[in-house]
Every structure is written in structure tokens, then in C-alpha cells.
């Protein structure tokens, strides 16, 4: 085998194995409870990828629906993966996404008369800024006093949740008494769909408006590309990785660990915030109670891990998780299996990656093209005791 193939195979073995493991154990759980795992998975695959549908589903529609789920996963996946590289565990992508969606909605409502070329950048940048602030707080706390980012980001997720409730139930963004959503954002703040939202135009046998894939897809792919570029082709990305692998060595090399941590979190937050803004601008067009139950930012953790922290991996993992999400509903209506099985599968994938991941690192096996996705020196949680926990001493 040529080395490149071997490395590629080595890189794919673990994530692929994790997915297989999850599906096998999932099948056992389904089987033990007296249902047919094969029909369950057939529904899942049909709904996720539009393959093998038997109940008259339109494959293009299923793919389109999956892509709509994939878009925010890519962007938040990047928001989790980038801090991973710096040795930080961003569990707060969800809160940052909410912050981004709140800011996007607020701006999109307040300035709803502005034309698209002005308003659209405003809402997207506003969402990014809000996400950056939301991630910046843990970044600063980590860099300055060594507060562990896992805990601070979890706390801020909840704060964002309650802030959202405040805004749309009785608060300044509420549509009207008794509602739990906001006014719609201005037309100028909306991202166009790839196909026109036209009920009379028939594409692939369906009105084109059912295909909800929007230009946010391009933004998400651009975000993934930017992430890869930043990480591997810039001095800042180099410094992020250096800090993630060895804070001491980075500090000795003159990299400001504090600055890198704060900047990394700000950028990550901007990505998450962008995901929230894209959802508002591209899909929902208003802030609704559906964000109370949003889990994109948590799925992003699995996406980042399964994607081994690489841009291509994140996109592929996002497709998997988007397909699982999308397929769950088809599985339920076609096969009568509760879509909660999807959560079980996601958890199993996580167990499997987590267990393999560190195991592989400990055994010193190279993972993928680049040395490793997670800092192999210490798992992110090790930050609980790393030197950073006692605030890195730094020269002026």
C-alpha cells in the first residue's frame, strides 16, 4: 500500500469503526426490545440519504432536508474543533449559537427596512460578534484566572437559554402577548434558498419551495475551508496548535498563551454565532421557542470528534449527523421505531470515538494525516490540572 493510502485508511478506520460499532449496538438494543433493526436502519438511511426508500419518499427532498441540518453542524463543528486544537474544550457552542441567533434576530428586526446588501452582512456579523462575546468570556476567564472552560461554557449555555426566554417571552423581542417568538426579520436579512421558494415551480417532482437548502451552505463550507486554512497555513494556526500541544513550549517560543486562548475562543464563538445567525437568516427568519430545544451545539462536539478535528472530517461527520437527525423521523413513520433511537446511536458513536481516540493516542499511533486531532499530550479535560489552571506566568 502506498503510504498515502495507508494513512488515509488509518485515518478512516477509527471513525468508520465507531459508526459501525454504534449501529451494531443500536441494532442489539432495537432487537432486544422486540423491533426489527433492519427496517429501522432502512428508514434511517432513506430519510438521511434518500437511498432505498420504499414508501414513496422523494430522495432529493431527503437529501435536501439533511443538508439543511448539516449547515449549522459544520459551522459549530468548526467552533468546537478549533479550540480542541488549542487544547480547549468548547462545550459552549450551543450557547454561542443562541447568542448569534439572538443578535441576528435583534438586528434583523430593528433594521428590517434596510436593503439586503447592507442588512445581511450586518446580521451575520452581528451574530458572529455575539457568539464571539459569548465564547470570549470563558476564553478570558481561562486565560486570566485559569477557570476551566468546560465548566464556564456549560454555565453560559444555560445563561443564553434563559436570556432567550427572556427576549421572546414577555421581553423586548416578543411578537405579541401570549406568543413565544419574535417578529420576523426584515426581508433584507434573509439568505436566499438555492432554488426559488416557489410553490408552482416543480423540480424533481415537487414544488421547488420544499427544497430548503439555502446559501448558508456555501458560507458553512467556506467556514470549514477557512478553518483549515487558518489552522494549517497561517502562523496563528501554528500557534494555536503549539499552545494546544504544549503550552510551555509555546510560551518559551514567545507565543502568548493567554492571547492565543482568548483569540481562539473568540474565533470559535464567531463560528458558532455565525451558525445561529445563518439559521435565523436562512431557515427560520424569526427567533422562536424551537431554540429552547436546539441541540446543534452539542451535536457539534460529536461532529468535531468524529471528524478528527479536520475540515473534511467535520463536513463528513456533519453529513452523518445531519442524516441521522433527518432520518430519525422517516424511521419513526416508516418503521415505527421511536426517533429517540438516534440519540442512542449518537451517544454510542461518542463512546466509541472517545474510547478509541485516546487509546490510539496513548499507543502512539498516528491518526490521519496530521499528528492528531486532540492534543495527545493530555486530554482536554487535563486542563483541569494543567499549568493554565494556575494562570500562566507571562512576561510583558
Amino acid at each position, binding site marked *: 500500500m502506498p503510504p498515502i493510502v495507508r494513512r488515509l485508511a488509518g485515518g478512516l478506520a477509527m471513525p468508520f469503526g465507531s459508526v459501525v460499532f454504534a449501529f451494531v449496538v443500536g441494532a442489539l438494543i432495537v432487537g432486544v426490545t422486540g423491533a426489527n433493526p433492519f427496517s429501522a436502519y432502512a428508514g434511517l438511511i432513506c*430519510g438521511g440519504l434518500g437511498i432505498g426508500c420504499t*414508501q*414513496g*419518499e*422523494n430522495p432529493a*427532498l431527503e437529501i435536501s*432536508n439533511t443538508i*439543511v*441540518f448539516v449547515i449549522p453542524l459544520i459551522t459549530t463543528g468548526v467552533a468546537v474543533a478549533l479550540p480542541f486544537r488549542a487544547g480547549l474544550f468548547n462545550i459552549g457552542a450551543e450557547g454561542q449559537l443562541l447568542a448569534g441567533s439572538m443578535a441576528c434576530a435583534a438586528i434583523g428586526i430593528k433594521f428590517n427596512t434596510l436593503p439586503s446588501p447592507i442588512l445581511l452582512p450586518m446580521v451575520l456579523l452581528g451574530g458572529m460578534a455575539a457568539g464571539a462575546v459569548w465564547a470570549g468570556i470563558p476564553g478570558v476567564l481561562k486565560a486570566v484566572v485559569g477557570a476551566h472552560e468546560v465548566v464556564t461554557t456549560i454555565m453560559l449555555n444555560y445563561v443564553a437559554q434563559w436570556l432567550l*426566554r427572556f427576549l421572546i*417571552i*414577555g421581553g423586548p423581542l416578543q*411578537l*405579541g402577548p*401570549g*406568543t*413565544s*417568538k419574535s*417578529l*420576523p426579520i426584515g426581508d433584507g436579512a434573509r439568505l436566499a434558498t438555492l432554488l426559488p421558494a416557489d*410553490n408552482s415551480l416543480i423540480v424533481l417532482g*415537487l*414544488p421547488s*419551495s*420544499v427544497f*430548503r437548502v439555502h446559501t448558508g451552505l456555501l458560507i458553512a463550507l467556506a467556514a470549514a475551508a477557512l478553518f483549515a486554512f487558518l489552522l494549517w497555513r497561517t502562523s496563528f494556526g501554528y500557534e494555536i496548535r503549539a499552545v494546544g500541544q504544549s503550552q510551555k513550549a509555546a510560551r518559551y517560543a514567545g507565543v502568548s498563551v493567554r492571547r492565543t486562548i482568548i483569540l481562539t475562543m473568540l474565533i470559535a464563538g464567531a463560528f458558532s454565532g455565525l451558525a445561529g445567525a445563518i439559521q435565523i437568516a436562512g*431557515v427560520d*427568519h*424569526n427567533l*422562536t*421557542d*424551537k*431554540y*429552547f*430545544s*436546539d*441541540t446543534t451545539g452539542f451535536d457539534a462536539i460529536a461532529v468535531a470528534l468524529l471528524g478528527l478535528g479536520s475540515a473534511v472530517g467535520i463536513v463528513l461527520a456533519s453529513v452523518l449527523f445531519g442524516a441521522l*437527525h*433527518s432520518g*430519525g*423521523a*422517516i424511521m*419513526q*413513520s*416508516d418503521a*415505527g421505531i*421511536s*426517533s*429517540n433511537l*438516534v*440519540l442512542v446511536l449518537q451517544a454510542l458513536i461518542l463512546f466509541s470515538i472517545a474510547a478509541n481516540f485516546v487509546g490510539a493516542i496513548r499507543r502512539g499511533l498516528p491518526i490521519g494525516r496530521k499528528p492528531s486531532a486532540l492534543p495527545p499530550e493530555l486530554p482536554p479535560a487535563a486542563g483541569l490540572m494543567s499549568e493554565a489552571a494556575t494562570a500562566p506566568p507571562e512576561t510583558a
Partner: protein
Amino acid sequence: MAHKQFRFLGVVAAAMVLAVACGGTSGGGTPTKTFKIGLVTDIGGLNDKSFNHLADVGLEKAKAEFKIQADVKESKSGDDYVPNLTDFATKSYDLVIGVGFLMQEAVGTVSGTFPNVHFSIIDGAGTDAKGVDLKHSNVQSLFFKEQDAGAMVGVIAGWLEKNGKAKKNKHVVGAVGGISIPPVNHYIAGYKWAAKMEDPSVNVLVGYSNNFTDPAKCKGQAQTQIGQGADVIFQVAGGCGLGALQAAGQGGVYSVGVDADQKDADASVIASALKKVDVATYTAIKNVVNGQFQSGALTFSIANEGAGYAIDNFDPPAELKTELDKIQAQIKSGALTPPADIP
């Protein structure tokens, strides 16, 4: 407001539909075709111990009686509403039912895309983003006058207080809401209105747990109200509210269940305010099977027995029974109209 006007029209429409239904139930020809019915829950899921569950019960009932294929999709997040509704629509289901007012916008959107598919939505209409009803001809709204049900249990609470038949008789009763949203507040509005009508000196405490799933939160709310002297606790918070019923049982006071008959939840439950989502779902399906789908609003109220109350672990005195029958008749006839907004 337009909303109220629409409501009124809804009542008229409902009355007509029911009249037709009563007139010739089995006259709908030869239903040899298997009807496909799709039900989409909101994020509460099938086990919400509330309206999603009741809708499923109605669907099962219809399945037992008609030749239908009944499929369910649980929405895991708000992002699922549109794709879930769309999936059924693209597969040419004969009726797609959305459960809960959270789905209004999604139903508005999808029904516009699929004008040939019939939609029903419980607790809402097919709206645009601003909450304005799009009045699509393929959408049927299944509304409930929760205030009617709330009023009936409010009569019980007020009557007990007035006549010193409650546990503490401090002229305080309570209501524990989930989140301050219309379906919840309609119940509370009727409850408060009727309790005040029965016992003008009664103080109605209204608290919100901000939660529909955690019974402990509602229990805390109820305990606080009991501590304030409340001796009838009305839960309007789905699964969370079950905690309020427990609090009443433990605190030795009466409680009132919501949506379904919650007699079994606790011995303290003396009555339940019924919102017959199961009946509504069943009716909507039946209409489709009989080729009688009709757009617009179908409102379920005391008048058409789509809302009401049940007496549970309690033997009401004759006087109270008389009072209840009287009020119920007055509401039915339109002589009394419980308010939709909390007074």
C-alpha cells in the same frame, strides 16, 4: 381583533360540521380506500402526558375504527416541524395533523406548498411568521375553548371556598402554569373568572414553572401556593404539573388535573379540566375518511363537548352538582362566556 372574529367564525363552522356529522355519519359512500393519516408531534413528544399523547390516543382510536394507515413522527427539535409535515405531504397522505401551536408557522408554510393535501393543526392555525392566519383552504384548525374547561373547574374551586367545603377555606386557590402562552392562559382565565364568580372574595394565585417536563418545579410552585393558603391547585403544565398534583396530595388539599382525566395521578385530584384533543384528532380523521374535510376552524368547547370537565376522586354535594350543571348550560347556551385572557 381579527383573531376573535376568526374564532367566532370557527364556532359557526364547527357547529355546521358537527351538525352534518350527526346527520348522517355513515353516509359517506364506500370507504374501501386505505386512508393515510400522518401525525407530527411537537417537541414534547408522545410521552408528554399532555396533548401530544392525547392526539396519539385519538389517532389510535381512529385506527381501530377506520381503515387507515396511521403514522407518527415525533419532532426532536423545532427544526423538524417543516420536514416532518413535508414528508407526509409529499407522500400524499390524506390528512397531516400537526400537534400544538408551536407548529403554526410550519403548517402555514407546508400547507401553502401542498394545496392538495389536507392539514389539521391542534391549538393553532396555519400562519405566517407574524402569526397571521393564512387561511389556506386545505388547513383545518382544531381549537379549544380551554377557558370553558377552566371555568368549570373554577366553579368547583370557587364553590368549595364560598361554602367552606374546601380543606382550609381561606378563600385562596391556585393555578400552576407551565409557560405563559395562550393555551395555558386560556385555562387559567376561565378558572379565575369562574372562581371569582362563585366566590367574589377568593384570591386566585397564578404561578408559572417555566417548564413543562420537570414535576419537581411545579411541585415547588404548588407547595408555595399551598403555603399561602391555597387549598385547590389547578395544574396547567403538562408533565411538570403532575408535581403540583402530588404537592396537593401531600399538603392535604385538593387538586385539579388538566387536558386528560388525571384521576389516577393522585388521590387529591377532585376534578380534571378536559381538553379533548383525542376527540378532536379522531373527529378530524373521521371527517376525512367520510370525505367531509372542511377548512377553517373547528372549535371544541363545552357546546360541542370537545371541552369539559370530569369529577374525579371526589363526591360533590348535590348543590355543587346543580351549580355545575347550571353554569355548563349557561356556557353552552352562550349566556355566559368565559374570558380567553386572564382577568
